[in-house]
């Protein structure tokens, strides 16, 4: 199973060093979307502007990114 790293970019970036094995990129997208929703929940748009979940693979290459969108 490929390894994916779920990093956060933006005002307070975070680098995922442990990563997670997931069956496919679709699973990684679902995980990343869930993570973006968790982190944006009950936040105003200005609290999340510029923040993104950036998913990379085992070689550090970006696979995709999802913007956080606070909607409170």
């Amino acid at each position, binding site marked *: 199973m490929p390894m994916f790293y*779920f990093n*956060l970019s933006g005002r*307070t970036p*975070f680098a*995922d060093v*442990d990563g*997670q094995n997931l069956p496919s990129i679709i699973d990684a997208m679902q*995980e*990343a979307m*869930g*993570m973006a929703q*968790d*982190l944006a*929940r*009950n*936040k105003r748009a200005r609290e999340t502007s510029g923040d993104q979940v950036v998913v990379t693979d085992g070689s550090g290459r970006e696979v995709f990114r999802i913007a956080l969108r606070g909607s409170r």
Partner: protein
Amino acid sequence: MTDYNSTRSGDVATPETTNLKWQSHAGHLIQQHDRWSTSSRTSDSSRNGLLAALEPSDFALLHAHLRQLSLTAGATLQEQEAPVEQIYFPLNGLISLVAVMEAGEVVETATVGRRGAVGAFAGLGPWHAFTRAVVQIPGTAMVISASHFQAAVSQSERIRDLILRYKEGLLAQVQQTAACNALHQVEARLVRWLLQAIDCVDDPKLPLTHDHLAEMLAVRRTTVTVIAGKLQEAGLIRYHRGRIEVVDRLKLEEAACECYGTIRRRTDAVFCTPQTAVI
């Protein structure tokens, strides 16, 4: 293993034989040690706040029927919708009351530690549990059967009152948790949960993984990792291989939402008499 002498009224003290019973329950093993203890409440049972709050005459109604039980991590003590057959008074460890949805998802609705009990309401009569009780952090508990507990409660208004006050305190925790889950940000919710957990176990070290926390808070494991990582970078916690340690409790309280303080205050009120309770 320590020997205890049995002391039921009128019995001659005899050497204990530890009786190990293995009982399979919902796929988890609960190891039972039957011990008859000469100890008064000042030893084991008083580590539970509810038992310690009882008048000696009320505790005497329960004492002979209480036995000590080891709680293993992951064990289900009580299934949702099932009849309550035993009441657990934790001496340490942490138990989560989780709501189980039809599709199988679970989320924690309340935590129970040494200041509480699981199944106490069955003291007032036969009762079915509303939530599943799962051991999150292992420990020990004093356990009594529902029928023995009912017999004791029927003889003491004070035990009944304590059960009802405890139920109110638990409800206060659940109400505030529901409001917090609906309105507050995940960072504050996680910090609140960590503080509640270390209060429950009286220990800044928690043998819990990010997966555990994710399940209790109904968020992604990757979400917990990001937040825990930032708390670690800020020097508030430290985590490694399935253990989370609170390093700076004061700073962590500053990072928590108001709900931690509200829950703390309202559950403390359980242990006040009606005259002194300030909610």
